[in-house]
């Protein structure tokens, strides 16, 4: 019995050692993953999930998605985000919160991504840019919204499209609208409900809801 173990152990050991040697020999000939950084700055591309620094993407019309709700500011454990907003009166008399200044202090950011998870609008994200060194700490405080930018208006675009799309559908097919209309109604209803709720109440309830919802797509 013990003899059996001795020899089977010996051959098993040799086999596993050979497997190990095979693995390293394969590694010997694979392309090396070392990035020779200062030389390859031009072609060096960080992986997509790299958290370099926070940015607020703007579209071609200099519009961002930030509604100034301040959830990111509250989610930040280090207090590195400071959102300044003002109340503006729209044409229909409604008061509306609007972003004035979005300040982000790179110097005390710990890249936890809680702000991005908290944002109901997907207005901020991390870019893969990592050359963040500056000579002055004051330069680390960055303003993320570009000068003269404003929030991208969703409703004026969404509303005329939704009825226009819904009406011909209801005329053409009587069966479809029953299914289509609740769907079209539900879609604008969700952001419409979320938008006023977040800035107006800015309570814990919407934060928790929002955090649980966007977390799944963020993790994916």
């Amino acid at each position, binding site marked *: 019995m013990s003899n059996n173990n001795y020899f089977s152990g010996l051959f098993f050991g040799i086999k596993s050692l050979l497997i190990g040697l095979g693995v390293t020999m394969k590694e010997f000939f*694979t392309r*090396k993953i070392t990035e020779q950084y200062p030389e390859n700055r031009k072609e060096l591309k960080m992986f997509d999930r790299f958290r370099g620094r926070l940015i607020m993407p703007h579209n071609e019309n200099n519009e961002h998605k930030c509604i100034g709700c301040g959830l990111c500011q509250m989610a930040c454990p280090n207090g590195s985000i400071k959102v300044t907003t003002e109340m503006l009166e729209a044409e229909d008399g409604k008061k509306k919160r609007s972003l004035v200044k979005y300040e982000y202090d790179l110097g005390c950011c710990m890249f936890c991504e809680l702000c991005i998870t908290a944002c109901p609008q997907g207005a901020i994200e991390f870019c893969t840019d990592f050359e963040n060194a500056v000579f002055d700490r004051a330069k680390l405080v960055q303003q993320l919204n570009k000068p003269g930018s404003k929030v991208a208006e969703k409703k004026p675009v969404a509303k005329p499209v939704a009825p226009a799309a819904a009406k011909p559908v209801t005329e053409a097919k009587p069966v479809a609208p029953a299914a289509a209309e609740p769907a079209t109604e539900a879609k604008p209803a969700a952001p419409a409900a979320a938008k006023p709720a977040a800035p107006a109440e800015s309570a814990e309830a919407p934060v928790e809801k929002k955090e649980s919802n966007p977390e799944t797509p963020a993790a994916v």
Partner: protein
Amino acid sequence: MFDFKVVTNWIDTLLLSFLPGWAATLVECVLVALAIITLYAVFAIILIYMERKICAFFQCRLGPNRVGKWGSIQVLADVLKMLTKEIIDMKNVDRLLHKMAPFLVIVASMLTFACLPWNKGAEVLDFNIGIFFFLAAGSIGVVGILLAGWSSNNKYALIGAMRSGAQIISYEVSIGLVMLTMIVLTGTMSFSEICQQQADLGWNIFRGHIPAVLCFIIYLIAGNAECNRGPFDMPEAESELTAGYHVEYSGMHFGFYYLAEYLNLFICAGIASTIFLGGWAPFHIPGLDGFNHVMDYIPGAVWMLGKTFFVVFLLMWIRWTFPRLRIDQLLALEWKYLMPMSLVLLVLMAICVSLGLTF
């Protein structure tokens, strides 16, 4: 094959033409010593560079590549740094032994280095008991390591030295048995005769077939352990003993240990290529005279170095693949596996030779 004796004889007659006999011998000794020391340093630099590059490649890195083209001058820079570093004198060390230990290690390493047959007729130390001398001289290194650990007045160093002593003395057994097995095959202990035999009859690893191949594998394992290299680097296990027996050494005294470690690797590989792979003997396939003739044109030194660096690569491959063994596993491997196996191989080889089953 080109016989290097032509050159040495020419130098000898040249010196004797204007010097008395004793002075000529003295000059020749100095010349040979210079050649050996130069080769020693050059090979150390090549080996350290090779080790760093190969280690990097096995770990999917690029290795040193900033100093010089492909980092080729990196090792020279390191040597310069090592030479300019201060040798620190510590309190409460045994001064004489502490200073003597690195020299013992390097002397043992150089003595064994001089045993290697570089080419036909280019052996420095060549006795009829060459292998015996090689084993004896190599054992002086253990004394250096034990002294280093003892004299340093440091627990880590002492533990490292004790482990190293246990390890080297244990693995010496299977190295001795493996060499004995090959001596059974060759019938001589002289390195030059072993090489000449292999040039005439074929490499020992082919002549001795199964037992020789197994002996070669056992020699590689035991040789790696003899050099205190991973996976058998318990004596200097950085993560637990900081650096083992040479923890209290600085500057060039540490450099000697470092040098000796790499040269011992080279010597281990060189002896493996001499005993198993034919030394300077070219590769011959019986029957293919044209091919054999072409192979004869490649100088013996190139064959020797090529085989040696091939074995060095094998040893580095082993080192950078396997994790370090625990001290009890290490001793169990030797006493429960390698030594019984080499005893069996010795008997097997004796049977093969006596029945004429070798080529």
